[in-house]
């Protein structure tokens, strides 16, 4: 009971207009620094996953020989979403460590650093995914379906889930210096253990439930169903996503409560 009370008390303290404005300002600053003096600028967020899509769409059908209708749209949906997930897992363990000097000197909520990183990655994901979707429709590779208007309903819990994960990673990384390397390995392995470049239908049925419980797939699946299959995700898929959001938020809050006290001495 006390835990729940503390959780909502902490959440209420953060729900302030200026807290969110600070997150946006820091995210904007990082974005402008990231693409400063770059010829293509923010277009790189589109080019990197597109290159992957082109390569996989050329190679995978020949190697795996599985029938997927409109494989390009399938790939774009899952690879762009996976890009947001994997970038969050790789970037946010450093969110506090790379801002150590500011954290030691200034009185500012420390959660703004992982949250500004995840917001920046989410912005990149939305912009690049939207551009790609418009391009797919214009090139008649896929058709526009009003069901895509439901996307925000599923993107919000995905964002909250990854924001929660980013806080847990950022606050535990000062104690666990190997976390960066662990995340890099996890991302590489998970790419192949998650139905991203192949459909879940190629997995034998008796093993399929294992893949369906993969948290990354729980996030990717509803987006894929809306954009690729033009269907509203089932009740069970939506429930899985909501449960994942609640579960990661609780775990993240436990990690945050445990680590927040002394982490400044480990930076």
């Amino acid at each position, binding site marked *: 009971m006390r835990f729940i009370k503390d959780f909502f008390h902490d959440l209420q303290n953060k729900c302030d207009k*200026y807290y969110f404005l*600070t997150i946006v300002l820091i995210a904007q600053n990082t974005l402008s620094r990231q693409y*400063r003096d770059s010829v293509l600028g923010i277009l790189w967020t589109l080019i990197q996953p597109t290159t992957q899509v082109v390569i996989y769409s050329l190679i995978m059908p020949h190697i795996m020989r599985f029938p997927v209708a409109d494989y390009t749209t399938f790939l774009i949906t899952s690879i762009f979403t996976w890009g947001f997930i994997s970038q969050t897992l790789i970037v946010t363990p450093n969110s506090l460590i790379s801002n150590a000097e*500011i954290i030691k*000197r200034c*009185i*500012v909520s420390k959660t703004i650093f992982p949250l500004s990183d995840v917001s920046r990655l989410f912005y990149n994901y939305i912009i690049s995914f939207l551009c790609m979707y418009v391009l797919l429709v214009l090139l008649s590779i896929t058709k526009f379906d009003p069901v895509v208007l439901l996307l925000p309903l599923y993107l919000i819990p995905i964002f909250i889930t990854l924001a929660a994960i980013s806080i847990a990673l950022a606050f535990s990384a000062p104690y666990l210096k190997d976390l960066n390397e662990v995340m890099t390995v996890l991302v590489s392995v998970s790419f192949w253990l998650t139905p991203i470049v192949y459909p879940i239908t190629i997995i034998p049925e008796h093993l399929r439930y294992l893949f369906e419980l993969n948290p990354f797939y729980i996030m990717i699946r509803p987006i894929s169903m809306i954009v690729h299959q033009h269907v509203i995700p089932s009740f069970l898929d939506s429930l899985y996503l909501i449960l994942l959001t609640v579960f990661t938020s609780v775990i993240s809050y436990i990690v945050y409560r445990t680590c927040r006290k002394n982490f400044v001495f*480990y930076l």
Partner: protein
Amino acid sequence: MTNIQIKLQHIYVNGVDTHARAGTLRQWLLLNKTIKSKGIPILCDVSLEAKPGDKIGIIGRNGSGKSSILKVISGNYPIAKGNRLVHGTIAPLIEMGAGFDPEQTGIKNIKLSFAYRGKLKDYSPELEQKIIEFSELDDKIYLPLKTYSSGMVSRLAFSSAVFQDPDIMLLDEVLAAGDAGFVKKSRNFLRKKLDTASIAIIVSHATDDIQEICNRFILMDQGAIIMEGSAKEVESKYKKDILNIK
């Protein structure tokens, strides 16, 4: 805000010696190092009370715990034991210019410095204009910070930090850099700000710098408060017992 006060009761702060713990598997398995980090005492049994009107000067040598007290009051350092009660808005001028981005222009860095201090609520274009005028950077404010001299960066850092009206001001040897004229102007401005703040705590290496401003003087050494007294008494004990100057 009414009831402005600072009350630190028997505060202990322990840092962490991360180098003493096993950093690698080899150190853990073969060299018998522990995974848990060793604690380093930073503050030991520190008690301090301040009420409106108090201008406290804390002196001591490097590593005596002066800055750590400020960090405990501002909430940057977690306490291991004791009670901390702080009522009032705080402006910690502890190492100014934190978070400045060399790639961004001076004007963007003003807003960033407000964000990193959690003071975005106080930021306004009018205040920004005042800061630019005070810093005397004129049109250079639109240039990236990396093109500034160290004096110019200090001017901007000082100007961005001092335009606030807190109840409690914490200063860690804040001395504006730049030419003599700017230093004089900054000192006068800071003096006015200190007069208007209800409580001010200033950290220094010697009482000479702070005796005109402060009305209470504290001597610290090895993370503990050694004595409180007049500027003369504190200075005398500091030189005699700590610096061993006869």
